[in-house]
């Protein structure tokens, strides 16, 4: 069963077609990378999946339920990490994590344990009780990533996951996503321009251009389609986009 499914989804902003008849399916336990040039429609697709934007046409399903019909159900299955980690500036990192846990209805004892556990994943304990407007972009991103894991989602939607992160944190983040997909059976949809990261962790890659899915498959499948054996993802990207 597909845990994420887009069926002929189109999104228009006035005369601009940001996403054009896009169809996509993601299985549980898969890390799917969505790559493409600026303005290709990656972030718009992510926002429609979360339920932040309404598709002009088409349907989106998360865990078998339509996003526009049962948004509370689909949102309860999602963890979302946006491209810009705008957070509540006057809250501390710890308060923010507690806030997210409270909204997801995680009991207090369990919440405290989970926050204690996940806050060890990155070296952010010393700043967790400071206001988030004083955090660097990378530290905000780390808190947002941790918050996305708090309620044990089934799907992670990640828009530019490693921008602003230091190399050590990038390694931790990649491991987090891999464990989530391989050990917990979750699905991860990553939109990124950082091709080495996509090549490193994604099971399947979709290249999107001008709102349309140009090609989709494993790296090996893409190499076959492009007829370029041993080509890197960067070569494949340039092949399909240019």
């Amino acid at each position: 069963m597909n845990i994420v499914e887009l069926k002929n989804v189109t999104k228009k902003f006035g005369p601009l077609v940001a996403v054009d008849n896009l169809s996509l399916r993601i299985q549980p336990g898969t890390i799917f990378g969505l790559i493409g040039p600026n303005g290709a429609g990656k972030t718009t697709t992510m926002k429609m999946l979360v339920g932040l934007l309404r598709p002009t046409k088409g349907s989106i399903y998360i865990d078998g339920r339509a996003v526009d019909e049962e948004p509370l159900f689909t949102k309860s299955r999602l963890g979302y990490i946006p491209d810009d980690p705008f957070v509540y500036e006057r809250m501390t990192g710890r308060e923010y994590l507690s806030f997210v846990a409270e909204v997801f209805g995680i009991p207090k004892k369990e919440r405290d344990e989970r926050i204690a556990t996940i806050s060890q994943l990155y070296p952010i304990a010393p700043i967790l009780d400071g206001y988030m407007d004083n955090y660097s972009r990378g530290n905000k991103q780390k808190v947002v990533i941790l918050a996305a894991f708090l309620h044990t989602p089934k799907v992670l939607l990640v828009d530019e996951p490693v921008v602003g992160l230091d190399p050590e944190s990038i390694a931790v983040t990649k491991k987090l996503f891999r464990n989530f997909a391989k050990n917990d059976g979750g699905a991860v949809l990553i939109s990124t321009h950082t091709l080495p990261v996509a090549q490193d962790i994604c099971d399947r890659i979709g290249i999107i251009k001008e709102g349309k899915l140009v090609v989709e498959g494993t790296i090996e499948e893409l190499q076959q389609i492009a007829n370029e054996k041993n080509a890197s993802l960067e070569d494949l990207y340039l092949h399909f986009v240019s």
Partner: protein
Amino acid sequence: MKTLFGAQLKLFFRLLKEPATAIVAVIFFFVLSLVMVGEFFGFREGFEFLFTQEYFGRAVSLYILEAFLLLAFILTVVSSVITASGIFFHAPDLRFAFTLPIRAATLFKWRLLLFFLVSSWPITVIAAPGIIALGSARDAGISFYFITLSGLIFFLFTACSTAALITLFIARLARIRTSSFVVVGLMLFAVLGGWGLSQVIVPRDIFKSFDAVDLSKTEAPIERIETAFLPFPSHPVAKLAFNAAENEPGIPLLLGLVGLTAAGLFTIVLIFGKEWFAKLFLKAQEGDFIARSEDVNRKYTKRIPFPLFLRGVGGAIIEKDIRSILRNRRDVASLSFFLLLGSLYIFLLSGAAQQASDGYKDRAPLLLALNFGGIGYFLATVSLRFLFPLIGREGQSAWILSSMPVRPAALILSKITFGAPALTAIAAISAVATLPFFEVTHSGQLHFFIFSTLSALFLSLFQTAMGGVSPELRRRDPERMSTTPQGLVTTFISLVYIATGSFIVYATASGKNVFPYDMFYIIFSLILPLLILRIAARKLTYIES
């Protein structure tokens, strides 16, 4: 300096080229002009009447000048200090300017000029029409306007320089976070400030100020009034206007004094600014906590559990909003400012009512209606500052709640649960605190109380909902949200609503049967917010902006 200010002006005029901004600006200046014109005619009528009063005329005229110039001074200084930290330390364009090869002293002068322009509204709107009305009532010549308007410009420099100095000293001294101690202290200071100011404007023995016991004199003396207002920087300006209107001597001396005070304070500001501005600006960029250099060795932090009092989705959102507001210096300063105004109003009313002659009781219905209007206007202003932007202030972090399983209706409900009880409590306290000063029947008092609390409920529901219909998620400054087209419509409807309520209160207190109007008011108060709430809930399903 010329380039910096020129760029600012260019940006301003470019903004005005956008139709929506231009319409907002035109409506804003139109409303402002209406207020000034209304004030002018009100003051002129008052001054004309006073000059026909042989005994009290001159003294009361001076008293009014002193009182409203003192109010204008306090309002200018307090409101300027509230906006100052943004202008001097936290504006994004200033951060950019600091990366350019421009001397800090030049940047300070640029920000000071902006600060003066932004801070000039209370004196322009409150003081200028009053002074012009005085001249008009006395058929004064051109020299009167030249002298008094020059005095007002100097006065503006004095008030703004005072505010700038206070800001620099606060920035220098207060490296403190907005702790609960600071919040409570500021609130207490605001209440005491309101009380203190009311004691100056309406002293306990106000009739002694006019020497009303000695009617052998042909004219009430003005010395006691002068003495009462002598310690304040507004006094020389009030005396200057009074002397110019009365053709009394000492005008050059007073104008010189006012000008010298302004020039002296302005020079002091420039000296301190040149010395401190760059250091204070850099310090301000460090933030409050963790990022501050003095916190580098901090081992222990006070951790407040979240949520502390409330539970569930709504509780978490309410506690998040409360913490965000109480930890924001500008929000706390605005709250204190409102508290100062509220406290001043109640203490002034109390002082005036206790000393008024029995004659005022004949006008109880009118005064009661004015009181309703005053409280309603206050509630509308507080609501516009804090409740109308409540959904919009989610800002670019709106994705957080929108990506979680939270119904838009639950989000709005939590915002209302935050705002409505607080505003209704303010209305109830204001009604209970002011009603004893009016001679009205018990049923009249009950009617007033119900209408006040109902109005607060309406304003909180209506304004919160209007703020959610099309929230300005990219515009984070809650103070500016009320100047959007939607904010202006909200303001207009709120003011018309309060004016209608005042009319019904007046009619009821006059003994007229206004049952149909009562019913209309009650039904309107409930139906309109529900309609807008429905639209807002639908709009908030997606974040399209």
